[in-house]
């Protein structure tokens, strides 16, 4: 907190806020990187704002939160193990123009050395979107549902929680762990991880609904990319998909699920089915790969040669998709169109729901008083007009408003 901005009271006016599950015409007040209640400022401090910004009727929402992203802008979190801090910062800066203000860098199934090398070097702060903690997707998954994960690194949970700690080394910077709940000894592992404050996610799994429910009862709260890398829904064994309508979830607990709405990885009808079945749990994720944000053409990333064509990423020279590259703001737009949901819901699916899933909704994911001033301005088509982190403008799509907002654009080209 620099002295120059200490206690500067900023008022955003002529805007519509996403608040209390509605769009309300109201002003947003921020000070010292927090969203504040203007009423005590008015009656107790008797202060007017030091700065007032006219938002031209823009929608103001909490910044988007991405729970699953493998890399982007040429960076791969699982493979660029020598440049962890740089890599994360590069992605953090690139993400802000997509409206993302917080994310969970995701590491796919990897050799033990990778975890030991990378996890301790996750930066606490970045020059762009904030890191909420790492999402460890694997290696304790079902080999039959490995997707693009390297088979030789997949491990069992036979050595229980201690075995898991040996593989990862430390859970200090970890926020989410995806595992397959049908693995032996998973119940105890899930319990212990939950006790340590880790969000346990189920995925890359062939679990039956029963296994899924047991995992939830032991503390699991998230399903990793619903529909992908799991048993298909079957009417006599709904599998993990069945968690969306299970009657065996502990009272007061919500099962959240990540879903990729890039228009490719999930059929729009599947999006609608998931949305209609369990709207409170739906979280939009990108599960984006390193090619996110790169222009059309061939790219060499790590050991891979891939081609970005028509906003999709293929193994170079083939028609095989190799992962998603739709940014989160695009996913929100596609989702709203596919499900015809309200603007507020589409936004909450990328803000409030992921925040609640990680139990951080007191500071992120909403515009509630006392939460962090990480927010975005959107037009009615949900295009990102500007991104603000810690109360400062870090991205603006328009040269004029850039000056008005004193935008310190940290998007690196």
């Amino acid at each position, binding site marked *: 907190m620099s002295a120059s901005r200490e206690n500067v009271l900023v008022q955003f006016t002529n805007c519509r806020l996403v608040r209390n599950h509605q769009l309300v015409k109201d002003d947003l007040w921020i000070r010292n990187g927090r969203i504040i209640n203007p*009423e005590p400022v008015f*009656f107790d401090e008797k*202060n007017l704002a030091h700065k007032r910004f006219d938002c031209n009727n823009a929608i103001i929402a909490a910044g988007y939160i991405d729970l699953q992203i493998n890399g982007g802008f040429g960076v791969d979190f699982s493979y660029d193990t020598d440049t962890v801090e740089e890599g994360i910062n590069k992605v953090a800066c690139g993400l802000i123009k997509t409206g993302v203000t917080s994310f969970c860098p995701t590491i796919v199934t990897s050799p033990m050395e990778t975890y030991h090398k990378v996890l301790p070097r996750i930066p606490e702060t970045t020059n762009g979107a904030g890191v909420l903690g790492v999402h460890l997707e694997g290696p304790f998954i079902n080999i039959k549902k490995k997707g693009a994960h390297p088979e030789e690194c997949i491990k069992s949970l036979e050595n229980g929680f201690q075995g898991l700690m040996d593989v990862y080394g430390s859970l200090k910077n970890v926020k989410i762990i995806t595992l397959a709940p049908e693995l032996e000894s998973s119940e105890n592992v899930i319990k212990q991880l939950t006790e340590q404050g880790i969000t346990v996610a189920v995925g890359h799994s062939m679990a039956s609904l029963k296994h899924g429910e047991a995992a939830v009862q032991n503390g699991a709260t998230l399903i990793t990319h619903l529909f992908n890398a799991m048993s298909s829904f079957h009417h006599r064994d709904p599998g993990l998909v069945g968690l969306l309508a299970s009657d065996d979830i502990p009272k007061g607990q919500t099962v959240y699920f990540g879903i990729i709405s890039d228009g490719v990885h999930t059929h729009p009808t599947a999006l609608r089915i998931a949305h209609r079945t369990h709207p409170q749990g739906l979280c939009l994720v990108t599960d984006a790969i390193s090619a996110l944000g790169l222009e059309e053409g061939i790219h060499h990333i790590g050991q891979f040669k891939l081609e970005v064509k028509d906003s999709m990423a293929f193994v170079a020279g083939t028609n095989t998709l190799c992962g998603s590259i739709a940014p989160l703001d695009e996913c929100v737009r596609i989702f709203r169109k596919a499900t015809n949901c309200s603007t507020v819901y589409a936004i909450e699916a990328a803000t409030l729901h992921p925040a609640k899933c990680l139990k951080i909704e007191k500071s992120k994911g909403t515009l509630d008083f006392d939460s962090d001033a990480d927010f975005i301005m959107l037009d009615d088509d949900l295009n990102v007009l500007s991104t603000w982190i810690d109360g400062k403008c870090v991205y603006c799509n328009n040269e004029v408003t850039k000056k008005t907002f004193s935008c310190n654009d940290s998007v690196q080209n």
Partner: protein
Amino acid sequence: MDEYVGLPRDHPESYHYYMFENFFKHINIDPKNVHILDGNAPDLVAECNKFEEKIKEAGGVELFIGGIGPDGHIAFNEPGSSLVSRTRVKTLAQDTLEANARFFDNDMSKVPRQALTVGVGTVMDAKEVMILITGAHKAFALYKAIEEGVNHMWTVSAFQQHPNTLMLCDEDATLELRVKTVKYFKCLMDVHMKLIDGM
């Protein structure tokens, strides 16, 4: 002009909250120019006296805007209030408590029993008074206010002795008045329009 005693300032029924949500936050008023009685002040009587002082310091009230209750009260000057009263703590009448219950989940135990209010005398000192009266349920009070005598049981009647009072009503509020009274004031509109025509 008034505020409940003992209600948290950010309670949706507090007048601080009401005024902020519905008025202050939509205009560019300087907060230093806003004075609302504090129903949570440690010394309520001192708070009321200070309020009267603040009015004097500001040079007196230029314009007082208010409504009336179905029992003809102005601010919280319940029936029986002194017509020369000043800002003070007032215990609310049963009628008022019942009328307010709907804002407090119909739970009488939650309804504030007391309020701080400007007195009838305080309002009489204002240069101009404007009372807004709408709806059939206020009609009888309006009748008592202007067609009957000055009476402390219908405190708004005190303004019959104020040099500059304007009562803004809708049709329904005039339902208990004599047709002659209503016609007289309606005809004044023509005169008024002719006077301001070409201004």
